[in-house]
């Protein structure tokens, strides 16, 4: 009986060592990939002025390594951000914007990511301007567009505590009505904004990642084009509808057009879904 336990224990140990070594191996591999990615990006930077062709190869390699890390299951804002920077240096504006947007899903409000995203947007050839309605909303509901997600959550919790605290104080005979009203107002603003963010997070967004594409009136190449010029890479779209091989996209100016699915990439974490 005792020997049976010894045998079982040794077997279990061997099994766990094997599994542990395998997981450690994966971690080492990701570390090595990261080192290779960072080295390739640095070499690309060094060569940018003197040998642009070779520099592009280095950036391409950096993209490949960053993507391999993401494919291995490690996802975070920094990886997407670094990959976006590599794409930017490769003049692949669509992929750059796509990956900056993905980075913002993991670190909303990060000033460095937002700066680079806005900078990449400025380089977009079509140069869409937001419609007036959108601009008015930005001004009227500035807190919704300016405050980072975490701040909104913190403010909602604080307002919640203050509001109920003030109700308790009222029961104690020390009413601070103005404070209760103020906290209720603040709480409603933050809750409303968070609700909108939640709704937004369930909406599909995308970016045009092919060099250029034609916006059409319908979901086939036989339909006329919606514009006299192609839509170039980097245009951010809201995906309203998907049909076989085609998507109905809302452009930044609020207009709708049909685009071929192969020319766009969906902004969502982890998978490189086209």
């Amino acid at each position, binding site marked *: 009986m005792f020997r049976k336990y010894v045998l079982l224990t040794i*077997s279990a140990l061997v099994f766990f060592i094997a599994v542990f070594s395998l997981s450690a191996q994966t971690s080492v591999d990701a570390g090595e990939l990261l080192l290779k990615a960072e080295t390739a990006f640095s070499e690309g930077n060094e060569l940018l002025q003197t040998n642009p062709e070779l520099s592009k190869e280095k950036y391409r390699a950096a993209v490949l390594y960053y993507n*391999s890390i993401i494919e291995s299951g490690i996802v975070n804002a920094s990886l997407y*951000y670094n990959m976006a920077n590599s794409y930017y240096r490769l003049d692949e504006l669509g992929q750059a914007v796509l990956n900056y947007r993905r980075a913002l899903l993991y670190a909303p409000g990060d000033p460095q990511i937002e700066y680079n995203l806005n900078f990449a947007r400025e380089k977009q050839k079509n140069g869409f301007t937001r419609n007036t309605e959108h601009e008015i909303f930005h001004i009227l509901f500035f807190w919704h567009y300016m405050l980072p997600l975490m701040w909104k959550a913190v403010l909602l919790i604080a307002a919640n505590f203050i509001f109920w605290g003030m109700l308790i104080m009222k029961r104690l005979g020390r009413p601070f009505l103005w404070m209760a009203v103020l906290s209720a107002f603040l709480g409603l603003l933050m809750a409303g904004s968070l609700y909108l963010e939640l709704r937004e997070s369930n909406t599909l967004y995308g970016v045009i990642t092919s060099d250029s594409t034609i916006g059409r009136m319908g979901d086939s190449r036989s339909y006329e084009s919606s514009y006299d010029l*192609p839509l170039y890479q980097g245009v951010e779209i809201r995906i309203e509808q998907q049909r076989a091989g085609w998507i109905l996209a809302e452009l930044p100016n609020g207009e709708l057009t049909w685009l071929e699915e192969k020319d766009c990439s969906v902004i969502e974490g982890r998978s490189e879904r086209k």
Partner: protein
Amino acid sequence: MLSETGKHRMILTLLLLILSSAGLFAQAISLTAELEQREIWLGDSLQLTLYLKGSEEAIKPELFIPGLSVEPLGGTVRSSRSITNINGKVTEKVSEAYVYAYNLTPRHPGRFTVPPITVTIEGQHLSTEALMLNVLEPETSDDFSLELYFEEDDTYIDEECRLRVSFFYSTSLRSLSIMIPGLESIPGGSLQPTEKTESYEITVNGKPVIFGRDDRADVAGLTAYFSVRPEQSGMIRLEDSTASFESAAGVQRVRDFFGRIQEQEVFDRQVIPAEDVSLHVLPFPREEQPEDFFGLSGDIRLEVTAEPVQVHLGDPITLKLYISGMNNTGVEIPDLSALLGNGFDIPDTRSSGKVEGRNKTITQTVRIDNTAVQKIPEITFSYFDPESGTYKTSSSNAVPVDILETQVLTEADLEGGSEDGDSVGKILIGKKRDGIYYNYAGGKLLESQNIMMEELISSPLIKILLLIPPFIFISFWVYTVLLPKGRLSSLARLDRSKALRTLKRRISKADISVSDQNLKDFNRNLIEFLKHFGLDDDQAVIQTEREIINRAIYGGAEIPGVDLLSAMRRIVELLDKKEPQNV
């Protein structure tokens, strides 16, 4: 004790376990290559895929195949999982491979061999097998034609020439794509059409290009123009261009899901050739070539601006040279020191210039080091005008400069001040809004994150923090409604002890000598206390002491401080013992 058979069984089990766990790490490395098809038409492309199994090392083998253009598509790690069920025993096998792909486009018909591709992984030399590819020659058709046409037979270096690409068809077709080998390799060649027309998107050399309608008498047509700007003299030939598409070949009857007969159009794949075209690129003529000609061609106009124009000797002047109408904006402009002549100090560093269309702006800081200089002189360039086929010169305007008397530096100047006290001479650093920020680095790149919104929604802490306050309030509300007495007495006790502390503080302030103010403050707090706790009508217990205090405040009686203090302390003691009646 184990029997012999038992011992053997135990050793065998251990060995099997160790071998199976070792098998997790050791997986044979292999490299294979796969061609998407073995036979294609000229003008079509196909994919060559390399599979590196047993290693995740990223490879990027260089590949050169004569007669085929090779475009690397990149690589990724791909994992596949297979589950087998044999007699109820389920086995799951996970295999990972690094996959690298190329796009191959034949440049001419014939049989091609994709040579063995060799890589070295972890010290092992791995090689693929050679693969054969047969490229079929396209055939002409009466219903379709592809025409390429250079608008000029001859052109000069850097001169723009248009290539017209037209496709004509008399029956319906779909999936049209055009292949013009060598178009991108023409220096200055561009795939963007030069005219914006009603758009029909056609794939040319793998990229979408807008074509316009160009119908002829009996056939429909599509046309686009490509801008070509050769940078070297010689003959440009565009050979083996093709158009591939699917043409309507008739209809076939098929049964649909409900068994009804439907007519369905049938398409055949077809590839047609275009006639080869050529363009003769002429060099700049040697005869009458000016000595100062440096390769500039076009319809050149020069303009110079300088700011400021009133300067002391040695002050920096920002000079801007605008060159418009250039055929090639990449031509290197000579150093300004050679163009401006003596009297100017020009730093060695210079910007490459800003290019917008056919215009270039060169910005240079210059300093005047000679009082004899009265103007920025005209700058003259010789250039070649392809329209007339002759050399011409273009001159900029001269910019008059006012040299001010040499300024004597004072202490105030050195400190950055001036006579009128304004702060001048400081260099204001402006933040540049150009370029992207640096990459993130460090261990956090290997830490997985969740999408912030998902994290917030799923966070139990947030839910708890949102639910705690209403829960506390409801509990408190229930407590105060159901147990009013308890609430009243406990709250009253709290308030009462606080009020008593105030009275005691008044006494402690009056400990040394009891002033009128001490006494009045104490009395005021005492009245508030009695009123708040409903003791107005029940002053008997402290009546004697209150009379002493009232006599001292209102009666003008001279009462010793010791007695007053004693009365005050007695009041506090008595009130301390009294139970509260109201809140």
